C-alpha cells in the first residue's frame, strides 16, 4: 500500500430531479451533496451509511455511470469528467465495478464465456483463443471452472453469480474496483466466501477497492479507511480501526452502537437514535443530522458544520469539534 492517491474526488455533487407525476411539482434530490475524499493505491476505502444516503450514487458517479452535477473526479491525476465518451470508454479498463445484485448484474441471455470475454474483446485485448484461456484462468481464480463456460447465469446460485461478477470486473486487470454492496444480497455463509475472494484478489493483483456497504461488521473487517455518509454528505472519515474504536461524530457513534451484539452475554451501551433518516429531497437546515442528534446545539440548527481535520487524517464534520 502506498500513499499515492489513485483517485481524488473534489466537491462532488449529484442532484436528481424527480418527476412527481402530473399532480406535483418536481423535486430535487440531493443524493450526493459536496463530498471530497481521496483513495490511495492499494487500499480498501469503505463507504458506510444508511439506506438512501448516497453511497451508490457516489460509486456510480465516480465511474461516470451517472454524470455528476458538479465536482471533479481525478483518476490518476486527470479529471475524467472532461473525457469524451470514447476516451472514457477506453479508460474504463482501469476502473471497474462490482454490483450489489448478483441476479440483475449479469445478462441472462449470455453465457459465462460471452460475459467474461466481452470486456477483453471490447478493449481489443488478446486474440480470440487467448481470451477464452484468460476467461478460464479467471474462472478458476474465483473458484469456478472451465466446466461452467457455456452456462447461463440463471444456472448459478447467488454466490456463484457474484463470483462471476467479480471475475468480470477483475479480468481486465483494473486498478480500481468500486464494489457496491457486493455481499449484502448474499446469505451469511456465502457472504464470507465472497469476502474472502475479494481479499485474496486484492492481494494477488494489488487492487484498490472502494467498498460500499451498510454492514459495519464487514466494513470493519476488510477496509483500511472508512467514510461515513449521512444524507449525501461525508460526516466522518478515518482509518477503520480508529473510526470503530474512537468515533467522533454523534452519528457514527450511534451507528456503531446500533450494531447488534455478538454474543448474548455481551453488554452494550446503546445510543438509540430517534426518528428516521430525513428525505434527501428535503434535508434539514444547518447540520443535517441535528434533528436526531443527542448533543445538538443551537448552532447545529443554523449552520452547516465545517469539516475538521486532525493530524492522523481523521476528519469529522461536526460543530462539537469546532474549537
Amino acid at each position: 500500500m502506498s500513499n499515492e492517491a489513485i483517485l481524488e474526488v473534489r466537491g462532488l455533487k449529484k442532484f436528481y430531479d424527480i418527476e412527481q407525476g402530473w399532480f406535483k411539482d418536481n423535486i430535487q434530490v440531493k443524493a450526493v451533496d459536496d463530498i471530497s475524499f481521496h483513495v490511495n493505491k492499494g487500499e480498501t476505502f469503505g463507504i458506510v451509511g444508511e439506506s438512501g444516503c448516497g453511497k451508490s450514487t457516489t460509486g456510480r458517479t465516480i465511474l461516470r455511470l451517472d454524470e455528476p452535477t458538479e465536482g471533479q473526479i481525478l483518476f490518476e491525476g486527470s479529471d475524467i469528467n472532461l473525457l469524451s465518451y470514447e476516451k472514457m470508454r477506453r479508460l474504463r479498463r482501469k476502473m471497474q465495478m462490482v454490483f450489489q445484485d448478483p441476479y440483475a448484474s449479469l445478462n441472462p441471455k449470455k453465457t459465462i464465456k460471452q460475459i467474461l470475454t466481452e470486456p477483453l474483446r471490447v478493449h481489443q485485448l488478446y486474440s480470440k483463443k487467448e481470451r477464452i484461456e484468460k476467461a478460464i484462468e479467471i474462472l478458476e481464480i474465483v473458484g469456478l471452472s472451465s466446466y461452467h463456460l457455456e452456462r447461463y447465469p440463471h444456472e448459478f446460485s447467488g454466490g456463484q453469480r457474484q463470483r462471476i461478477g467479480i471475475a468480470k470486473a477483475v479480468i481486465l486487470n483494473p486498478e480500481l474496483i468500486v464494489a457496491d454492496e457486493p455481499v449484502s444480497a448474499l446469505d451469511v455463509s456465502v457472504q464470507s466466501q465472497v469476502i474472502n475472494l475479494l481479499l485474496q484478489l486484492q492481494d494477488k493483483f494489488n487492487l484498490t477497492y472502494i467498498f460500499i456497504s451498510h454492514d459495519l461488521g464487514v466494513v470493519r473487517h476488510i477496509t483500511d479507511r472508512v467514510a461515513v455518509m449521512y444524507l449525501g454528505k461525508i460526516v466522518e472519515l478515518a482509518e477503520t480501526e480508529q473510526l470503530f474504536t474512537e468515533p467522533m461524530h454523534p452519528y457514527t457513534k450511534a451507528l456503531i452502537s446500533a450494531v447488534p451484539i455478538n454474543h448474548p452475554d455481551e453488554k452494550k451501551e446503546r445510543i438509540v437514535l430517534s426518528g428516521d433518516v430525513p428525505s434527501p429531497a428535503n434535508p434539514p437546515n444547518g447540520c443535517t443530522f441535528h434533528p436526531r442528534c443527542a448533543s445538538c446545539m443551537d448552532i447545529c440548527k443554523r449552520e452547516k458544520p465545517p469539516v475538521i481535520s486532525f493530524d492522523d487524517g481523521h476528519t469529522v464534520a461536526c460543530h462539537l469539534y469546532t474549537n
Partner: protein
Amino acid sequence: MVEFIIKRTIQMIVVIFLALTAVFFLLRLSGDPATLFLPPDAPKDQIAQYREMLGFDRPLYVQYGDFLLKAIQGDFGESLRSHEDALSVVLGRVPATFQLAFAALGLSILIAIPIGILSAYKRNTFYDRIGVGLTVLGQAIPSFWLGLLLIFFFAAVFHLLPSGGGGTIYHMILPTITLAAYSVARFARFTRSTMLDVLKKDYIRTAKASGVPMMRVLFKYALKNSLIPIITLVALDLGVLLGGAVITEVVFSWPGVGRLLMQSLLNRDFPIVLAGVFFIAVVYSIINFIADIAYAYVNPQIRVK
C-alpha cells in the same frame, strides 16, 4: 392542480393539432372530392369551378393554413354534401353515440368486474375456467359478426327485436349487447389478471392475517388496488366506444358519430371527416384526462395533499 390542468390542456392541444394535421394531409392525398359531388355529366370547367370554389385548387399549404385558422374558431367548413356546418353535423350525432357507449360501458362494467374478481379468487376451478373460457371467446368474436348473428336470431328468425335504426329503447338492445360483448371480455380478463396480481401482494396477506373475511378482502382491499389499472382500461375503452364504434353503428344503422364518419369517408366529405376526427380526439383526450384524475383519486400515492 391548476398546473396539472394547464399541462394536460397543452398536451391535449398538441395531440389534437397533430391529429388534425395528419388527417388533413391524408385526406388531401386521397383525391379530389369534387368529382363525387358533381353529377357524372358535369363538364370539366364546372369541376374546375367547383374545386376553385372549395379552394381545392390552391397550394396545399395554403389550404392547410386556412383550414387551421378556421378550425381554431371551431369552423371546419361546410359539409360538401349537405352544406351544413360540419361540426354541428357531427355534434348532432353525438347524443346517439353517447347513449350507446354509456349503455354498453355500464353493462360491461356491471357484468365484467364481478366475473373477473370471482374468477381470480377461484382461480383454476371449474368456475374460473368457464369465466376465462367465455372471456377468451368474447375477445375472439369480431363485433360485426356478433352483430350479424344477433340480427339473424333476434330479428330475422324470431322477429323479437328491430334489426337496426334508432328510436326506441328496443333499438338499443342489440347494438348495446354487441358493443358490450367485447368490453365485457376485456374487462373481465383484465380484472382477473390484475386481481390475481393484487391477491399475491404482501398487504393482502396482512389483511388476511388480521382475520378479515375473504369476501371483504376481495371486494374491499383487493378491488380498490385493482381499480387503478382497471380505470385506465375503462377509460381507453370508453374512448373506443365513443369514437370507434363504427362497425356496430354501421351494422345496426345506429345514427351515431362512427357511422357518420364512415359515410363521410366513403363520400369524401372532408369537412365532416375532419370535424369528426376533431371530436373524437377531443373526447379521447378528455376521457384520458378524467381517467388520470380518477386514477389519482383511487391512488393516494399521487394525490395532491
